[in-house]
């Protein structure tokens, strides 16, 4: 450290220039960098470490999805019901609008910003490749979504235990719900991520995600119900392959996790549902990775 500014030159209030200091401390490997990026993305999905304004939407939605769970817990504890009025997996299905809105609103934060402002090139010039960047972003979004669904689920679970409901029944229900939520989170994060990485304007990204998650699900549900009322059960179950939420409900129904569907999903439909869910999720992740790789090299 050199003292390049000599004291007593008559100038006051000068910051003494220490000169350029080299850094020879430890440097983390790619795994640690990816972990940092993952955690930053997870926090950003909830508006943490960002402006106050950006915390409003995620926490408002989270609060809204917790409110019914809190009421259910209150009712069960106070009235001494012998079971929860809704299963854990069923609760997530019934709050699907909130989950979808959270995904649609927050995916652009993780997938559009760096592409729109071109900061992706700064990431691409660092050890983590832009393809890995896209994958880690998807992981952040998946875990953020999972947390969004798991938090109300856990609140209900704790309430159920406090109300003295049978622990093993509740645990088995909880297990099924969380497994289904993991798959759903991976799928929805992939879909909203891909939509947001292609349509870089936040408005378009949100509308695109809403179209897929809410409008498409509405159409699929309508088709399922009409087909069921017309007696074409296989059309009703088959239509369920075309939206993330009908896939979730269908698998929940097949696994006896208490989600409601017009026609029960069974037989060969179950592997078909699993396969479609996995293929679409994997396809979205691959699409995301390819998209980030392409943009990162421009």
């Amino acid at each position, binding site marked *: 450290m050199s003292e390049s500014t000599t004291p007593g030159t008559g100038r006051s209030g000068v*910051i003494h220039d220490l000169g350029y200091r080299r850094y020879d401390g430890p440097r983390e490997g790619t795994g640690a960098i990816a972990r940092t990026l993952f955690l930053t993305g997870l926090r950003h999905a909830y508006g943490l470490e960002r402006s106050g304004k950006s915390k409003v939407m995620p926490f408002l939605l989270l609060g809204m999805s917790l409110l019914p769970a809190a009421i259910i817990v209150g009712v069960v504890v106070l009235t001494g019901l012998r079971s929860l009025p809704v299963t854990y997996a069923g609760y997530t299905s019934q709050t699907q609008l909130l989950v979808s809105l959270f995904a649609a609103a927050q995916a652009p934060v993780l997938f559009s*910003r760096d592409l729109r402002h*071109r900061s992706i090139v700064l990431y691409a010039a660092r050890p983590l490749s832009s393809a890995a960047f896209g994958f880690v972003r998807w992981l952040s979004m998946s875990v953020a979504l999972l947390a969004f669904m798991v938090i109300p689920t856990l609140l209900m679970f704790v309430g159920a235990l406090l109300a003295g409901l049978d622990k093993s029944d509740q645990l088995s229900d909880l297990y099924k719900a969380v497994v289904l939520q993991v798959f759903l989170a991976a799928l929805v994060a992939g879909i909203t991520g891909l939509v947001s990485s292609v349509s870089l304007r936040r408005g378009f990204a949100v509308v695109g995600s809403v179209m897929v998650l809410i409008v498409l699900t509405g159409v699929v549900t309508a088709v399922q119900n009409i087909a069921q009322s017309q007696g074409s059960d296989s059309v009703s179950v088959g239509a369920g392959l075309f939206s993330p939420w009908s896939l979730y409900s269908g698998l929940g129904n097949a696994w006896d996790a208490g989600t409601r569907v017009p026609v029960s999903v069974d037989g060969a439909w179950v592997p078909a549902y699993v396969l479609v869910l996995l293929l679409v999720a994997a396809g979205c992740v691959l699409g995301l990775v390819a998209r980030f790789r392409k943009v990162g090299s421009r």
Partner: protein
Amino acid sequence: MGAPPVISTAGLTKHYGNVHALTDLTVDVGPGVTGLVGANGAGKSTLIKILLGLIEPTGGRAQVLGHDIDAASQEIRRLVGYMPEHDCLPPDVSASDFVVHMARMSGLGHAAARERAADVLRHVGLDEERYRPMGGYSTGMKQRAKLAQALAHDPRLVFLDEPTNGLDPAARNDMLRLVGRIGSEFGIAVLVTSHLLGELEQVSDHVIVLDGGRLLRSSATGDFLRRTGGLLVEVVGTETERDRLGEALAQRGLVCRPRGTMVAIDPPAPELATEGVAHDLIRDVAADLGLGLMRLEPDRGHLEDVFLEGGAHV
């Protein structure tokens, strides 16, 4: 070049279909500041992106800091900083937060990243503004923030792509001085691009000139500014006196033209080229005309001349 080259390419080529962005480039870059000059589309940015491992070359090899770009591009990106040409800053984040984050993305721990970010932002001259969102920055401040993120992890080499783009003359000079300091004082090798030849004269130790994806010339900056063999003469008075001298010299067999307030004389013909002959002639002519000689000096070349010479050195 005494030290091992920082960058070394051999037959590096990048073709996009019929577009030849880079053709058979073989060049070495040493420590200090190296200017990479060429018109827009000459292949400067393409070269940087290939060296960073962001795009694959069609052919040829290259090493950066001793690492092969094919085999160890990740290792290269760990040791190198990059300031892109275009805007790349998120507007809703402060420079301070952004540089900390970028330092972490280069592998620095949390505390180290904070310390380095503060240091580097001070060096590039972002003071109180560093805590404001970057969306409100002037072009000069944005360029400084971009430079800061490139230096955040104390790289051994930085690629600066058109760092003076969009800056006014004062900010341009500040930026060039900073680039010079990075190369000398900070001890970080610099590869800096510009489409303005004149600016790189001031800061570069070495200049590489690209034209249409081909190497036009690579030499020490001093060689570009070598003596041309011509002379510059200035006499006391106005343009009238300058022209009187010029006409008189022309009559004595010297090819000359006005340049500013001076007379520029082309390298003299062989019979006058002997040391001092032309000088004596000019002195005598000025004395005969009764003009006061103010200045008589050798004419030096400019980087621009490389293009005028039309690639005679390839």
